[in-house]
Each structure stands twice: as structure tokens, then as C-alpha cells.
């Protein structure tokens, strides 16, 4: 992944998570992955288009998803219902949109597609031809992995 794209994603993930969740947020070491990636239970996905094609995937366990949704709504949600799903989806949207805005300011023309949410126990993303950058973010609500796969258009 182009090095200029990395910081915007790392910074906005950190800033938004801190702003929206309010507690302590820590960033784990970045690494690259290129095998099929098992999803922890809840995956929010935002597509990228424009100068590049690709996607940003936010991966977390169901427990973390419920904790985050609860925190953002200011009340305890015990079921992963429509509201909880919309909340997690919105978090994905906020981070990706701010990263895209930052990249735009740097001269890169990115756009995003409306997000999608997937839940499931044994889901895998079969991306064996795409390399992804993994940014692990550890929050008080649990770990969220930001998984970015971007390919330049020729």
C-alpha cells in the first residue's frame, strides 16, 4: 500500500475512536496480510473508489460491537439489533470518511460507497489476491482491527 495512504487511516482511526468512545485508545503494530482473513464476528465494510479501488474493513467480536454501540448510544444495548448495527456501521463510515477527506487534502481523489455490515460466526474474507494493511486499535470496549486493501488504478 502506498505509504502516503497509511497515516491518514491510522490517524483518523485513532482520533475518531477517541472522540466517539471517549476512553483510552491504543494502537497496535501495523502489519500486512494476504491470506484469507477470518472475521472476528462483526465486519463493517466501506468501499473505496476513485484514483484507487479497494475497501476498508472494520473487524471486531460481537462483544466489542455491542460495547461500542452501547457507548455511542449512551445506553446499554444487549442485542445486536437494527440500532446497534446502524451505530457500528456509522463508526466505520466516520473513520473512512475522515480518512478520505484527509487524503483529498493531500491530493488523492478517493470516494467512498455506503457501508455494509456483516455478522456471522465462521465468516472468512477470501482475498487471496489482495494485500491488506492491518491497523489494530485497542479500545476500552475491545479490539477493532482496521483492515485496508487498496489498489491503484493504472
Amino acid at each position, binding site marked *: 500500500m502506498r505509504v502516503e495512504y497509511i497515516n491518514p487511516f491510522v490517524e483518523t482511526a485513532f482520533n475518531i475512536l477517541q472522540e466517539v468512545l471517549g476512553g483510552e485508545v491504543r494502537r497496535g503494530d501495523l502489519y500486512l496480510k494476504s491470506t484469507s482473513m477470518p472475521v472476528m464476528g462483526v465486519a463493517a465494510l466501506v468501499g473505496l473508489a476513485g484514483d484507487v479501488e479497494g475497501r476498508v474493513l472494520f473487524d471486531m467480536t460481537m462483544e466489542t460491537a455491542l460495547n461500542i454501540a452501547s457507548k455511542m448510544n449512551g445506553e446499554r444495548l444487549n442485542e445486536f439489533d437494527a440500532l446497534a448495527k*446502524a451505530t457500528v*456501521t456509522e463508526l466505520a*463510515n466516520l473513520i473512512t*470518511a475522515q480518512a*478520505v477527506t484527509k487524503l483529498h487534502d493531500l491530493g488523492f481523489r478517493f470516494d467512498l460507497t*455506503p457501508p455494509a455490515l456483516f455478522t456471522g460466526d465462521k465468516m472468512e474474507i477470501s482475498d487471496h489476491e489482495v494485500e491488506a494493511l492491518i491497523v489494530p486499535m485497542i479500545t476500552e470496549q475491545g479490539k477493532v482491527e482496521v483492515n485496508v486493501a487498496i489498489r491503484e488504478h493504472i
Partner: protein
Amino acid sequence: MISKQDFPSINERPPEGLKDDGTKIRVLVVDDSIFVAKQLSQILSSEGYEIVATAEDGKEGVDKYKELCPNVDLVTMDITMPKMDGITALEHIMAFDKNAKVVMVSALGKEELVKKSLLLGAKNYIVKPLDRKKVLERIGAATK
């Protein structure tokens, strides 16, 4: 995100959401996220605004506006939505009613989008994540 200390003391000043004649300002919220719609509705209702309807995509937003007009005073419009995006919906609404008051609410903060919306007739532009103070300020300014 919304906590008790965000609620202002009622006696300090009149709520933003009331017109001079005391009636509530009527708002149409257009956003594909029920979470954002809920957030906005909570912030605005707590200040006296009345949420008359919500819409989940641009097309529904335009249709609802046409239906409700003239019984709607303000529209909040998300940009990234399926079926019809917020910018296109804004165009349609302004074409239908040149006096429409639309405030864009988006996670995207690109300068060109802000400029484009304002040129198309939007009264203001709010960048998410939503901050209660900012929302009330910008929406308040739009309805004056």
C-alpha cells in the same frame, strides 16, 4: 455521546427550536443511518425542534419534502446514501422550492463538497461526528 451535562439549564435562554411566535421549528431528517437520525432527533428535540419525518435515502427525502411542504421548515441532509445521494437530493429540493432551508450533515469534509452544497443552495454544512453545540449553532443559524 449525549450525556446529562449536555442538557442546558432550561431557565437560561429560550430553546433554539422555537420560532418567534412560539411554534416549533419543523425538521425533516434525511439519513440512511438510524443511529444518526436518532442522534440528530435527540439533539434537536431537546432544544424544542419538532422532527416531523425521517427519510432513509435521497429519493425518499425529496418525496417527503414535496409531500410535507409547506409544513416543514428545515431539512438535514446526509450525503452518502444509497439510491440517491444528498447532493442530488439537495438539487431536487431546491428546484422544487427555492426557499427551502437545507443543512448538509456528513462525515465527508472535503472542501469541494462544502462549496458545491453551498453553491447549490444549502444553508450550512455540519461535519460528523456530531457535537451538540455545533449542531445547534449551525442549524440555528440556518433558520434565522
